[in-house]
């Protein structure tokens, strides 16, 4: 499946705490407005690729206090009615795979609502490759098995542009779940 995604800025008005939602009014334009997604399935294995324009990649943030890393994630619902915008809720989790430009291995993420994100090392057989060329990132996840995706056949995507100080809920996201058509 190949698909062009029009991304939106994740709404900040719903985020926990009183700072982010007041200090960061929802920007009209997402930091990353468009992305191309490709999904292929081979038996139980998945290959998920996202590519997007990024003129100013950030791949190392270890030497200063104010820089943020480029990242991308694919998220799948853990239950049929898991809410995308809140990253799930109690008893209705979401699962995700996260790439950071300063790591070789992806991270596995589970969440049951805002502020509950838990990051862990990935299961065996979950890998990621990335390349930046001519102003464009291409990130490919190879996933040996992802039961949540197999069960619910839906994904959401998020892109954090480090140069725009994207992190946490400051991100460009697909406007909801999108089906992975065969």
């Amino acid at each position, binding site marked *: 499946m190949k698909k062009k995604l029009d991304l939106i800025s994740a709404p900040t008005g719903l*985020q*926990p*705490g*009183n*700072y*982010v939602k*007041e*200090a*960061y009014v929802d920007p009209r334009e997402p930091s990353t407005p468009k992305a191309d997604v490709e999904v292929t399935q081979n038996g139980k294995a998945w290959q998920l690729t996202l590519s997007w324009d990024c003129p100013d990649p950030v791949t190392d*943030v*270890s*030497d*200063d*206090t*104010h*820089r943020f890393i480029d990242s991308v994630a694919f998220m799948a619902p853990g239950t049929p009615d898991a809410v995308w915008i809140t990253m799930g809720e109690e008893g209705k989790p979401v699962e995700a795979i996260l790439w950071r430009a300063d790591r070789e291995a992806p991270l596995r993420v589970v969440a049951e609502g*805002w*502020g509950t*994100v838990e*990051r862990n090392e990935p299961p065996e057989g979950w890998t990621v490759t990335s390349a930046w060329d001519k102003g464009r990132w291409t990130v490919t996840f190879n996933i040996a098995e992802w039961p949540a995706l197999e069960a619910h056949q839906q994904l959401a995507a998020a892109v954090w542009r480090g140069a725009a100080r994207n*992190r*946490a*809920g400051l991100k460009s996201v697909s406007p909801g779940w999108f089906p992975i058509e065969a």
Partner: protein
Amino acid sequence: MAREKYATNVKRQVAMVLDLNKCLGCQTCTIACKKMWNTDTGSGYAYWNNVETMPGKGYPANWQTTGGIDAEGKIKRGEIPTLDTGYGRAWTFDHQEVFASSGNEPSQKIWIQPKEKNVKHGANWDEDEGVGTYPEDNHYFYLPRICNHCEEPACLHACPRGAIVKNEENGIVMVNQDRCHGYRFCVEACPYKKVYFDPKRQVANKCIFCAPRVEEGVAPACARQCPGRLRYVGFMDDEDGPIWKLVKKWGVAVPLHPEYGIGPNVFYVPPMSPPQLDMHGVPLDEPRIPMAFLEQLFGPAVKDAMNILLEERERKKAGESSELMDLLIAYDWNENFKLDDGTREVFS
């Protein structure tokens, strides 16, 4: 939009008072803290306790205007200081070169100096610069700063992870680094710029008011190591303790930037200063440190605090007794610290 208030379950609040009339600017507090808690490579630049010269840019540079609360107490988007222009990177020194040149002729010796060139800022960057014209009205004073362990911590409310907590037993605000994902909204939001970020470990860190010491009845290292004996530590509600006496009973200790509206629990006895001189060297009625500047830092309550200090000083000068002056002079250093029944005295 007004800021939301969050109910907290803090049973008692530990606090500190610092008498600015006694600060030597020696940085012993800074080093005591740094060596005890914060020697990680990634936060070499970070001083949970710092002493800055006022008036001045402070540390990090321009912290009074780059936080997440404006002068009316409303939330605004704060800034994250950079290592080069905000905090200043930790310096490295040419010790090897100095050692190697020790046998040279004096003119050929190399002297200790930082290796870094074109440095833009540092933790004690504008030391002793001050403002004014000598000898008429030049002035400066030292402002030691730690985390204010606020009633409504801006850092806590900014963290989408819930990684910052206010301890129910003593009100100390701490970062749970196991939950921190390094988003740095806390760094942005704190109007005192007292949360730091370790870019090597990708987590925030901050003053913990020496919590393990406080739990044992021992005052924080910055207070116990202070040669000027200018720091007082205790609980806000202890009417036998120094904090209640200086803040509530005498009203001479006032918080820094109360207009931020988040309830800081570190208080300052404002600095008295000699009079300005006219062009003939005759003393004027105006103090060298303008009251307007002190009000800008400590709010309007500093005026009454100053008047009480001046009155009590005159009483003491006249040979009368003054509980306030005796406490501020620290005749008995043990009275500077009172945490609980298990408090360890300074001298046994």
